[in-house]
């Protein structure tokens, strides 16, 4: 039965696997490998993304962090409104999915108030990630909420 459930996917999202992997590989050079890596926190071309990266890195010390700006998928291209986050951190140990999301929302309260309105979060502990529970789903297609 479990295998049946796992094999079910949301039909509207199917073709976004490729989009996601493409966008992830594009951001790959910026991925945080370790805390020693010098990071483009002050990168002025993407101020919101930089501040998200800075806050999450400082507060959660993630083993791995990926930030994908998905605004291009919506009617707000060239902006910083839609993000997908992959965060692997021990800070999520013994925390429920809701608690993990709340932790991230609280850290990024300022960004959410400034205009980020879509934040898709995959928050895992290193063990969960290594166990292979890599159920990152592609973000769904925009349905034209007109930046709302």
């Amino acid at each position, binding site marked *: *039965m*479990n295998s*049946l*459930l*796992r094999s*079910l996917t*949301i*039909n*509207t*999202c199917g073709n976004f696997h490729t989009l996601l992997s493409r966008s992830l590989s594009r951001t790959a050079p910026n991925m945080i490998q370790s805390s020693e890596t010098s990071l483009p926190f002050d990168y002025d071309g993407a101020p919101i993304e930089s501040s998200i990266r800075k806050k999450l890195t400082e507060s959660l010390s993630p083993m791995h962090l990926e930030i994908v700006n998905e605004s291009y998928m919506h009617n707000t291209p060239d902006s910083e409104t839609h993000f997908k986050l992959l965060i692997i951190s021990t800070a999520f140990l013994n925390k429920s*999915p*809701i608690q993990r*999301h*709340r932790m991230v*929302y609280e850290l990024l*309260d300022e960004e*959410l108030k400034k205009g980020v*309105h*879509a*934040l*898709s*979060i*995959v928050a895992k502990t290193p063990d969960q990630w290594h166990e292979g529970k890599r*159920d990152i*789903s592609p*973000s*769904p*297609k*925009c*349905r*034209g*909420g*007109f930046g*709302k």
Partner: protein
Amino acid sequence: MNVMRSSYRPFKLAQQFLNFSADASGKLKEIEQMVKNNKVVVFMKGVPDAPRCGFSNAVVQILRMHDVKYDAHDVLADESLRNGIKEFSSWPTIPQVFIDGEFVGGCDILLQMHQNGELIDQLQKAGISSALLKEAVEGDKKNDK
């Protein structure tokens, strides 16, 4: 005249603030009723037949797969509901899903629960039998034969 104006303004501001607070708490009470009105309640952008946001659409699709009947509220049609629901559940994004009056999460969490089977359990606790569970049970029976 000047004295009057300066004393009048803060008073008016305070009054506006009080009115606003009264409105906001009224909205929260209204939302409290809304989330209890059905076993499953969804706050989304657009309506189930025409979602206006991909994340809201994903939630609709998941619930459709489980053949769940639910109340849907369009936050784009009511700005005070849109702000109120965020405050009510201390959750800054839409969609939001409630089962048995309890906040369950948004699109990411519902999808995760759908994938790991937790959604079926959660629905069952609320007395709802997921269509996927029925399908799986029938499939098992066929395999046994």
